[in-house]
């Protein structure tokens, strides 16, 4: 569904990605793990269009999307969340979710003036959908609040709800468990599992091994900007190269 071929990206003199290749199969949860500085977040940013890679290719649904703008990917139902939650701070929770609806009139100044009934009808339907998503992540009581009052875990849930509003085929999750209290991690795992059963493909960059082992069908290990190996969680956990990558060959 998504394939990454020998992607490279340098920041100054440092090669964050040094020829990384990956295959993400449809309908699975693929976890990307690796020590700090392995290039996981850069890889995600390159796939999602936030960072333009120096070389290599990203193909999504058979099309080359290397360096495509994030909004193009989002309109093709590929959406990402952020490592540090980036909620829109002056929009209410409802508006945060509603923003992710896919509708061309979101960018039209004249539509609401010329076709008020149609715009209102669409918006009402979308509000209904957004409220259902907020109910699903348990934030419906805070729909009118702004995100600054949310806990770290609630912000992740809000990001997830926002991503779901897009009706995504593929969701890139950048450390969803980072800064989230353990009980909330279980809630997140539950919701991601449900969505997976509904057919959403996930890519998960994560350090929390409980989450990785609970969710992933396939685990890819990255080290020094390259893909090291991939396999099931058990295979990866027992592989000598992975242990070496994490511990720097000290043992």
């Amino acid at each position, binding site marked *: 569904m998504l394939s990454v071929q020998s992607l490279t990206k340098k920041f100054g003199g440092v090669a964050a990605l040094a020829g990384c290749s990956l295959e993400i199969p449809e309908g699975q949860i693929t976890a990307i793990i690796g020590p700090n500085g392995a290039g996981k977040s850069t890889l995600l940013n390159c796939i999602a269009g936030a960072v333009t890679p120096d070389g290599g290719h990203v193909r999504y649904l058979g099309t080359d999307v290397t360096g495509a703008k994030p909004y193009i990917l989002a309109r093709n139902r590929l959406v990402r969340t952020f490592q540090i939650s980036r909620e829109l701070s002056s929009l209410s929770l409802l508006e945060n979710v509603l923003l992710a609806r896919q509708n061309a009139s979101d960018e039209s100044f004249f*539509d609401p003036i010329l076709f008020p009934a149609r715009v209102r009808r669409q918006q009402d339907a979308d509000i209904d959908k957004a409220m*259902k998503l907020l109910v699903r992540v348990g934030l419906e009581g805070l729909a009118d609040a702004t995100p600054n009052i949310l806990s770290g875990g609630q912000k992740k849930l809000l990001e997830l709800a926002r991503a779901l509003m897009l009706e995504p085929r593929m969701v890139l999750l950048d450390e969803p468990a980072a800064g989230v209290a353990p009980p909330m991690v279980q809630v997140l795992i539950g919701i991601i599992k449900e969505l997976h059963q509904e057919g959403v493909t996930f890519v998960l960059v994560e350090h929390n091994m409980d989450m990785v082992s609970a969710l992933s069908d396939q685990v890819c290990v990255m080290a020094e900007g390259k893909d090291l190996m991939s396999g099931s969680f058990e295979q990866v956990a027992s592989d000598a190269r992975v242990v070496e990558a994490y511990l720097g060959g000290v043992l």
Partner: protein
Amino acid sequence: MIAYLTTIMTLVSIAVLIAFALNVQWGMCGMVNFGLAGFVALGAYTTALISLNGGGFFVSVFAAIIVCAVMGAIVSLISMRLSEDYLAVVTLGFGEIIRLVTLNEGWLTGGALGLPGIPRPMIDVIGTDHYEVFFLGICVVIVGIVFAGLEIATRGPFGRSLRAVRDDDLVASSLGKNVLLLRVKAFAVGGGITGIAGSLQAFQFSYIDPSQFTAIMTAYAFMAVIAGGQGSHRGLILGACSVMFLLEATRFLKDVVDVLDNSQIAAIRLILIGAGLILLLIFRPQGLLREYRLKAPKSSPSSADSTAT
């Protein structure tokens, strides 16, 4: 006194329109525009040139809207590749270019002498006696139309997208919003509104010259938007009125305090306005009114489902 009040209210209407433009560009979309006076001048000169050459009221206002909207789009497009802070420099530069062109291209703009004799709309029908009141009426109606249009357009999806771009453009883009297009549109809409303001200014004075379009015009718009609350069209009407009230009410200081001479009063007026704004920012940093936020429907969707089935 009536004539004085009428003139002041007409000028407030024009100031409110300029503030509307800034509110769309900066208040909602987060793009600073220090070249507002240049846009207003562009609108005023467009209107003046067309109506001096026989164009009617609607034609010249419409032309001013189009010219300023296109110019707004161009200014935002050329500065899009630069980092956002540079937009301040680009717009400042744009304002200066317009000022220099109006000052030096005498064949077109009359140079420092300006363009006199701009025909005021329907003056032969209304007559000169009550014309100022009639013109104020036109201004108020136009402000009303622009206000209603902006409220309708920006309370819905378009305004929400602009506010998302202001808060975090990467998130807005990740959620499928074409950020570049939204920014250009915000600047074009704002540009169009400054075009209207420029038209009204030209018709109000029936004479325009470069000295009417100074940086203080831009400063008043910023004051109105900051005082009123970034993003709130209602707030900025209040903000513009309070700034203008402070500005005009302090004129009468000299009648109350007779120990000061005129030049001292003039200086004190500006000090008082500054102090008023500072006090407002200390006690109400978010401005007088908050921007519009969509409210969640009262009935929860689950209960709506149960009633539907």
